[in-house]
C-alpha cells in the first residue's frame, strides 16, 4: 500500500504532520493536528453523492479552516449516480476536524477524522442526510439544518 508506519487508514490522515519513520521524538508532533488547508483530503458525510473532496481554499481563517468553517473543494471521488460528480467545485462546511476546537467553558473537542458536508454557495445543504456526530459549534455558525439532520450532537 505504500503508506508510512504512522499513517492510519490510508489516505485519511492528511492533516497529520507526516513522519517517515516512527520514533520517540515524533510522538509529540504526531499529536498536533493542524488546520484544513489547500490539498487537504476530507471525507464527505452526507448523501450528496461525493465521497472525497480535496480542499482548494479555506473561506475564512488565515492559516486554514477549523471546525465549523466553510471551504471550497474539488470532488475527487464520487458515487456514480449522485447530485455531484467528480471534478465539481463545491462548497463544504467542516463538521469534524482532527484539530482541537476550544469551547468557552474550557473544554476542547477533537474528532478522529476530517469531514465535511456539501453546501451550495448560499449555504443550503445539497444532501438530505448527515452521518456521524457533529459538534454544537455549528449552532453558532447558523448551520441549524445540519444540526437538525445529524445523528448525534457532541
Amino acid at each position, binding site marked *: 500500500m505504500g503508506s508510512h508506519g504512522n499513517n*492510519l487508514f490510508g489516505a485519511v490522515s492528511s492533516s497529520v504532520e507526516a513522519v517517515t519513520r516512527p520514533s520517540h521524538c515524533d*510522538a509529540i508532533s504526531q*499529536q498536533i493536528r493542524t488546520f484544513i488547508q489547500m490539498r487537504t483530503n476530507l471525507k464527505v458525510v452526507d448523501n450528496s453523492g461525493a465521497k472525497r473532496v480535496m480542499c482548494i481554499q479555506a473561506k475564512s481563517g488565515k492559516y486554514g479552516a477549523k471546525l465549523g468553517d466553510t471551504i471550497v473543494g474539488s470532488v475527487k471521488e464520487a458515487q456514480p449516480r449522485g447530485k455531484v460528480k467528480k471534478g465539481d467545485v463545491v462548497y463544504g462546511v467542516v463538521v*469534524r476536524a482532527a484539530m*482541537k476546537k476550544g469551547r468557552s*467553558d*474550557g*473544554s*476542547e*473537542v*477533537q*474528532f*478522529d*477524522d476530517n*469531514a465535511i458536508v456539501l453546501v451550495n454557495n448560499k449555504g443550503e445543504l445539497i444532501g438530505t442526510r448527515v*452521518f*456521524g*456526530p457533529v459538534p454544537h459549534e455549528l449552532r453558532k455558525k447558523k448551520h441549524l439544518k445540519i444540526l437538525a439532520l445529524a*445523528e*448525534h450532537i*457532541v
Partner: protein
Amino acid sequence: MASAAATAAVSGVVLPHSLLSHRSSPPHIVALASSFRRLSLCASPRRTTHLVARADASAEAGEPEAEAEPVSASADAEAGEAEGAVAVAEAEEQPPPSKLKVKFGEIIGILNKQFIEEAEKVKTVPDLRPGDIIELRMQRPNKRRLSLFKGIIIAKHKAGVHTTIRVRRIIAGVGVEITFPVYSPRIKEITVIRHKKVRRAKLYYLKHKLPRFSTFK
C-alpha cells in the same frame, strides 16, 4: 475604596510595612498573579499585605496579629465581593493561619489550593487515572438537563485548578476526544464505572487501534 482600606491596613500595622519596603517589587509578582486570574489591581495589593501581615505578625508576636486581623478581615470581606463578581471560583474565606513565613513565590500555589478547596466543596472529584472508564455529567449553557459523556480517560494533565482529563469514546462510528477541566463548575458529577488496566500514563495509541477498544455502552 478598596485601595484606601488597603493603605489604611498597611499603615495601621507598622511591622509589615517595613518588611514590605525591603522586599523587591511585591506588586509586580502579584500583578502577574492578578492578570492571570483577572483580579482588579486595587484588590491584589490588599491580598498580598494580608498574607504578609499574617506571616510577619505571627513571626513577631501575637499582639500585632490581633490588630492586623480585624483590619485586614474587613478589607478582605469587601474586596471579596468585588473579586467574586469577576472571577469564577474565588476563596472568600481566609487560609488557615499557618505559622510559617509565606514566600512570594508560593502565592500562586496557595491560591491554587484555595480554588481547589472551593471547587471541592461544591462537588467531590474522585481520584481519576488514565484507564478509568468514567461517566461525566455537564451543564450546558441554555439547557436544563445535564448532558452525559462517557468514555475512557486517555490523559490527565495536572495543572492545579486547571487539571484536565481527555476522554475518548466512539460516537456514531467516529472517535471523539473531549478535554474536560476537572474542577470546572459546569461539570456536575464524575463517576468511575470501570477501570481498564493500562501500562501507560497517556493512552494516545488508542486512536490507532480498532474502534472496539474505545467503545463503551
